[in-house]
């Protein structure tokens, strides 16, 4: 691969090729800039002084650097409460997701398992047909899950697609390993936990990321099933601040500092909330990004 690249480098010399490379680089740079600009604008407003924002200047980089917006937002108890709730849903939810996904994928990857085909169909069918929103709403209410923390975990326990990715990964383990396990007298639970799961760590890393981001960003289930404010996650809070821009919320964000609160540009508080909510994702995901191509292809090829 390195050899081929080096050769390509030497070859690229005709005028047409140079134009080609110019276009390629230009397009990639444009793609990167277009992706980043909205984030940079949000970050810059969140860090600018209120005066600069009120003068309605436009800039990519912050004017008159100030952390006042952040100071305002972190003083607001609802931010912390919804942050805590989101953390709870993400940690507990992702743990249950990974456990359930492995427990389902492992039997489906064993060729000798006598219910393998019917159970594969059992889970696949749900990708193509669903009862729809209303029957789900009725059953969740009747199970008594409405307004409980578990409503953010149980109804999204697994995703069929992720079970398939995990199943393909288990199928990729060489059969001799499983043979030696059973010769050593290990039962299926021990084999799964001690042998099979450690062998598919890269896949589990990708699945963990998918599930965790899903929980972190989950707005739908909270909207439907969590009426109680003290259980609501960050995304519901964000919606109130960002989209409904409810005067009530913005006022309370200013808190007891009435005079100060008046001076604070509401748009700054909105943008600070955005930054605060996506920092964990930006911090977390580059570590797992290198596994993406692999993780996605497993599902696409063998699904």
């Amino acid at each position: 691969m390195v050899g081929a690249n080096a050769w390509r480098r030497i070859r690229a010399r005709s005028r047409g090729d140079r134009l080609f490379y110019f276009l390629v680089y230009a397009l990639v740079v444009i793609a990167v800039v277009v992706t980043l600009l909205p984030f940079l604008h949000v970050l810059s407003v969140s860090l600018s002084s209120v005066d600069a924002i009120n003068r309605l200047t436009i800039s990519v980089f912050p004017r008159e650097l100030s952390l006042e917006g952040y100071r305002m937002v972190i003083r607001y108890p609802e931010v912390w409460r919804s942050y805590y709730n989101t953390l709870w849903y993400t940690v507990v939810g992702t743990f249950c997701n990974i456990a359930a996904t492995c427990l389902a994928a492992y039997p489906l990857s064993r060729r000798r398992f006598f219910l393998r085909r019917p159970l594969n169909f059992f889970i696949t069918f749900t990708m193509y047909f669903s009862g729809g929103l209303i029957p789900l709403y009725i059953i969740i209410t009747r199970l008594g899950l409405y307004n409980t923390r578990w409503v953010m975990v149980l109804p999204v326990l697994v995703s069929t697609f992720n079970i398939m990715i995990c199943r393909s990964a288990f199928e990729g383990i060489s059969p001799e390993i499983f043979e030696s396990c059973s010769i050593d007298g290990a039962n299926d639970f021990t084999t799964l936990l001690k042998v099979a799961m450690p062998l598919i760590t890269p896949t589990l890393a990708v699945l963990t990321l998918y599930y965790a981001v899903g929980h972190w960003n989950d707005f739908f289930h909270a909207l439907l099933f969590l009426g109680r404010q003290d259980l609501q996650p960050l995304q519901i809070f964000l919606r109130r601040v960002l989209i409904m821009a409810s005067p009530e919320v913005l006022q309370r964000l200013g808190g007891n500092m009435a005079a100060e609160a008046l001076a604070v540009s509401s748009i700054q508080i909105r943008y600070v909330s955005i930054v605060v909510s996506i920092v964990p994702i930006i911090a977390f995901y580059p570590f797992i990004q290198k596994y993406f191509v692999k993780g996605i292809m497993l599902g696409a090829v063998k699904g």
Partner: protein
Amino acid sequence: MNAGNAERQSRNLMTLIRRDRHLLLMFLPVFLYFLLFCYIPMVGIVVAFKDFIPGRGVFGGEWVGFRWFLQFFRSRYFTRIVRNTFLLALYPLVFGFPIPILFAICLNEVRSSKFRRLAQTVTYLPHFISTVVVAGMIVNFLSPTDGIVNLLIKVLGGKAVNFMMEPRWFRGIYTVSGIWQSFGFSSIIYIAAILGIDPALYDACRIDGAGKLQELRHVTLPGMSTTIVVVLILSLGGIMSVGFEKVYLLYNPALYETADVISTYVYRQGIELQNFGYASAVGLFNSLINFAVVFAANTASRRITEMSLW
């Protein structure tokens, strides 16, 4: 079939169950999950044919046959929400489909691996940002008073536009922001396809004196064609299932004309107004169409490329 045969079969079954008892036990939690949250709601569809009364459960209430369906087909909302659902899936497909392909090709030609990694890391990012934040950025950037877009318009001498109150802007906003969210991440599958092309083909191309453009036309694109066709067909399968969240977060009553889709209509009718029977009927109508479209798309994919979802 005689009695002995049946008995032997049931004894075989017992042996199998005993042999695979650990595997069965493992699968149990997920079996219960699918039963409770997928299959029982499917049975719950009977609500669509009933006059649902909250206290009496799913199976209480009078049978009303196809009353809710007829009510929906005759209502003035029917054409509007079906049209909106279709168009909000079609526009991103038409305008957004080629972009990840182009992007994957460009990325593959970038020779500095550091820059390539950086470009990938950056462009995948919007995929992981919540719909609430994306919708929040859209609404705030487009705000007529302090949004950046209108500030720019005013600086350039134009008049501020109230984008989120005029129905004619909605589809464009939805489509462009959708492309921004997804083009990077969608390119992964094409990058994988390009990586799967035999390097010997490129060598042969170069020996024949082909330039980069010819290489692209005769090696890279043919090498990606299967993936492109599969992705296209499977995207066509999603043509009647627009995501609920983004539309719900972006729209408001002033935009219903172009923004209201089946899922948001079901939400308003069912959850907000508690018309469970009617809303289930509309939802079932959507599920059935989705199922038919996905089934057709998958069959087409299998016929044409021998690759399919099942």
